[in-house]
């Protein structure tokens, strides 16, 4: 199954750093997301995009995570050559992450 079935997401930007939220539709899935959606997997998923680190912050009271990815926006929003300089579309690709079915 896809992450999209369990969670929703929004991307933000500051300088050359992108942050992506992953928010469980049902807070009961929080532990499962904690296990499956690791910073290492996110870094691997965005191998072509993220040149720096991926740090995961946990927000259990919201059933959510915040992934902060450095060197991820082509040198920064204001000078990036990318079509989507803000990286706004990154959240949609993260939701395509494949998860084990159970």
């Amino acid at each position, binding site marked *: 199954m896809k992450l*999209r079935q369990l969670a*929703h*997401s*929004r991307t*933000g*930007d*500051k*300088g*050359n*750093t992108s*942050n992506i*939220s992953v*928010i469980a*539709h049902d807070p009961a899935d929080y532990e499962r997301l904690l296990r499956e959606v690791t910073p290492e997997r996110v870094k691997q*998923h*965005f*191998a*072509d*995009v993220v040149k720096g680190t991926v740090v995961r*912050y946990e*927000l259990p*009271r*919201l*059933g*959510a995570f*915040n992934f*902060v990815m450095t060197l991820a926006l082509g*040198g*920064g*929003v*204001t*000078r990036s*050559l*990318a*079509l*989507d300089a803000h990286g706004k*579309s*990154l959240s949609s*690709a993260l939701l*395509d992450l494949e998860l084990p079915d159970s």
Partner: protein
Amino acid sequence: MRCIRLGAGAGYAGDRIEPAAELARDGDIQYLIFECLAERTIALAQQARRRDPQSGFDPLLEARMRAVLPTCAAKGIRIITNMGAANPLGAARKTAAIAHELGLADLKIAAVQGDDVLDTVLAGDYRFEESGTPVAELAGRVISANAYMGAGGMRDALAQGAQVVITGRVADPALFIAPLLHEFGWSLDNCERLGQATVVGHLLECAGQVTGGYFADPGLKDVPQLARLGFPIGEVSEDGSVIITKVASAGGKVTPATCKEQLIYEIHDPKRYLQPDVVADFSEVTVESVGDDRVRVTGGRGHPPTGLLKVSVGYVDSYVGEGQISYGGPGAVARARLALEIVRERLASTGVKTSELRLDLIGIDSLYGPTISRRAAEPYEVRLRVAGRCDSMAEAVRIGNEVETLYTNGPAGGGGATKSAREIIAVQSVLLPSHLAQGSVVMLGATS
């Protein structure tokens, strides 16, 4: 418990205007707050001001003020905005002239200044946060330096009776914190309240992004009537708790999910969201539905500020040239890839020097790079995009030209070529000791 209703009238410079007018008319609000400054906006505004000293503020200021001033004046709704950009005083004078013309002669308008720290930054020894490079290395290319100011200056303007408060660069949540300080008499030492006030400001500052805008994903996350999306109202109680809501008849929706997406938007460590007035802690925040389109958000906390202000430094970085052309039908991707190779070879053989070059196929790899899309089915149409960074405009122009000449020199069936070249004003941050940037208030009447 006493309650103040704050309305968010804009979430970015180009935002829709009707929802702000709707909030003024039907929102039962006491404050209407417009957040209109992106990272680079002030640098561009500073350039505009150098060409024309009367300009340098938000080009939509006049349209927004005309849309809401009469209603706000009649109902006693106070307006707070960062539309002053690089020229808050100019924006205040313009607003005073509009108010005078509308017959609102006794309207008190304040300009809050102090964010422009260009001279201080150029005189000091500052390095960019991300790259570590000294600002001095950019020599004559620096255009602007503006500190993210706190809520103090705006609060003072409100205390002096301003009905319209216009500022330049401030931390976005501070636009919303200022009226809470003023109304509830909270002190700038009250970290607990400032932390929760930051939650309030953060939820409201992007306007429609908390009422269902930027949220819809048909079938999974449906949102009604996005073409007439309502902007949010924050109903803030004296204990700091807030209910996020909207005008009942407006489009969109307010749910725990829309509030969570906005709460985490553009923060890094949720325990340490750095603001000029406080280090906010969002880690214990909870959201709870308390009615139709009513979500209660509590639990924001805070610690004393770092004593450093983030400063955005704008500078002339480079020149970027770009060209695009589309290919379709069977074999489209192979023809587009051939075209990319032709452009790459042409740029090299004709001596166009680029410090960075991107060759993308929109529809395949322009957003995420090649790895993610490698298993995807081949699209029926694809758009080639070449973008390159150069040291001069003359060279940047040649990039788009080399894409355009694919019409008669490249693979079969290319169509819809476009090209552009632009000067890049980039922004990087430095940190400045807070005492080096002091806010000040200038009061104007509508007739001045």
